[in-house]
């Protein structure tokens, strides 16, 4: 029962083969036994069982929403009313939001059940879930014949590990530079970053407001379509929420890829990338071709400038967004401050971890007098050029196929000493955030030593339907049915 996909559980509940209370109780047990993975930072079993009971009552009457009775995990970046929300940071302390984020409210309105809040890199800054104040998450996957703990990717590392280990039916994530797709790829699951403006950002702890977007992390492409449908909405509380009706993404899965023009960007062939990545990418193109798609070589000439552009734009926005953490109105307050400035400076120095402080300093610097034009203004122009690359490419193709990550999951501690090496994990995903487009990571194969790798599909703005349909074609051809061996259960 706990091995159900979201779609299977939905159908079983509707057919009254199982109850939400049975399903939820079973998952609560699995979650408790998986504590060594550190995927959840807050478990909410009582709330989950109460929600499941209410769902069962609705289902018994033949009522219920699109996600009625389905247990989910929520990234700890989403504010949840009455349930501690930390964003992986000490500075939020025991912050208990008096309000609910729009995305999670949409999920509860659709009948979903909350199992708990998942671990993440502090303020979503990281690609390995190692910057969390709650400690690292371990990837359920290990290399063949190895006991080395690997990272689950980041920043949505608790969500990726929870889905991959079967600790929920599906989870929410957020993606600012790759934080849904990269962890999904290295844990063998599906992750979708929707078009900027598709899901409301209201009530999600802000990192970089022009890049942040919430999305589903699931076992299958169909599940991603189902979950996105309920997460997305037009929200008056978020002025960047775009006024377009939310389509039935599950229905849009039908129709196949015959005649679809798939672009292969030559700039994504990176020097020094492992040959397994390139081979998998070629295979992905062949799979789509075999199902009737047309493969077209395209060029995205400014690709190599995307990461450095991101590391100006995102820290600049973060330094501004994170100014609100001052030790006065909520969260952590340092002891023994001499005066108000000392209170701010000490609370922030003690409350933020090293990576967050590094990014606040970068952001403050690139926005400061004398450096603004050289860094921030230039980066915003580069961003225009990067987005233009895609506009040009979409004159020739409908969807773009790339690798999702430059490699498989790496060992805990491997890249923590070199910020730039860590940043390079997002080399294939970050362009998509800068251009505001939808991107989907789909598991497509295993490395020689048994670790999952993913492919990425990039679509036109608000064309999640095509992205999901192409993703389904990859999923079916890859037939990725591998599961990690359970080494963690207590």
């Amino acid at each position, binding site marked *: 029962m706990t091995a159900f996909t979201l779609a299977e559980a939905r159908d079983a509940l509707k057919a009254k083969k199982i109850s939400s209370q049975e399903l939820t109780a079973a998952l609560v047990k699995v979650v408790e036994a998986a504590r060594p993975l550190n995927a959840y930072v807050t478990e909410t079993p009582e709330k989950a069982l109460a929600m499941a009971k209410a769902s069962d009552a609705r289902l018994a009457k033949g009522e219920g929403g699109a996600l009625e009775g389905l247990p989910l995990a929520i990234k700890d970046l989403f504010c949840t009313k009455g349930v501690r929300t930390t964003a992986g940071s000490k500075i939020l302390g025991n912050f208990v939001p008096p309000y609910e984020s729009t995305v999670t409210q949409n999920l509860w309105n659709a009948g979903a059940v909350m199992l708990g809040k998942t671990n993440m890199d502090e303020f979503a800054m990281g690609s390995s879930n190692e910057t969390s104040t709650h400690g690292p998450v371990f990837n359920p996957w290990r290399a063949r014949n190895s006991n080395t703990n690997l990272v689950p990717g980041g920043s949505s590392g608790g969500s990726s590990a929870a889905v991959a280990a079967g600790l929920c039916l599906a989870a929410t994530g957020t993606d600012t530079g790759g934080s849904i797709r990269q962890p999904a790829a290295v844990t063998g699951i599906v992750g979708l970053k929707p078009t900027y*403006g598709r899901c409301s950002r209201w009530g999600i702890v802000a990192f970089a407001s022009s*890049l942040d977007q919430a999305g589903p992390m699931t076992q299958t492409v169909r599940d991603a379509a189902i979950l996105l449908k309920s997460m997305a909405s037009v929200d008056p509380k978020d002025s*960047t929420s775009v006024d377009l009706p939310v389509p039935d993404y599950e229905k849009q899965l039908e129709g196949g890829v015959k005649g679809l023009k798939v672009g292969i960007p030559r700039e994504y062939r990176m020097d020094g990338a492992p040959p397994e990545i390139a081979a998998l990418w070629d295979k992905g193109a062949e799979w789509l071709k075999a199902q009737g798609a047309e493969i077209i070589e395209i060029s995205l000439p400014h690709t190599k400038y995307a990461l*450095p552009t991101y590391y100006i734009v995102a820290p600049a926005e973060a330094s501004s967004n994170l*100014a609100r953490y001052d030790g006065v109105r909520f969260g952590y307050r340092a002891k023994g401050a001499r005066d108000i400035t000392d209170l701010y400076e000490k609370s922030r120095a003690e409350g933020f971890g090293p990576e967050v402080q590094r990014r*606040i300093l*970068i952001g403050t*610097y690139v926005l400061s007098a004398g*450096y603004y034009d050289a860094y921030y203004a230039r980066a915003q122009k580069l961003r*225009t050029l990067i987005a233009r690359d895609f506009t040009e490419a979409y004159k020739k193709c409908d969807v773009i196929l790339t690798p999702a990550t430059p490699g498989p999951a790496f060992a805990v501690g491997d890249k923590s000493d070199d910020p730039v090496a860590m940043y390079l994990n997002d080399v294939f995903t970050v362009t998509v955030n800068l251009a505001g487009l939808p991107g989907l990571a789909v598991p497509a194969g295993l490395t020689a030593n048994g670790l999952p790798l993913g492919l990425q599909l990039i679509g036109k703005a608000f064309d999640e339907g095509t992205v999901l349909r192409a993703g389904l074609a990859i999923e079916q051809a890859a037939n990725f049915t591998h599961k990690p061996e359970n080494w963690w259960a207590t």
Partner: protein
Amino acid sequence: MSVDKDTVRRIAGLARLAVPAEKLEPLAGELNGIFNWVEMLNEVDVEGVPAMTSVAAQKPKWRADVVSDGGEASALMQNAPEHEGTFFVVPKVVE
């Protein structure tokens, strides 16, 4: 452009982050590593390219100028590190 100890001290002040003296030098090194990498953006000719200032594919929205929420002072106080009634308590600001 290279970041030195004094620059780190200055930007840490702007960012309201207490940085201990012995951390200034290592931080300058880390930031320089990142800024040296970012330097590659100078290769690109951006003459005449407009800055991207909006990602959402629509004009900024208008909304009615009405009170739609609020009056929750005591709920907001629940997360305050120190408060008296509905006032936040901070160290003395005016001597």
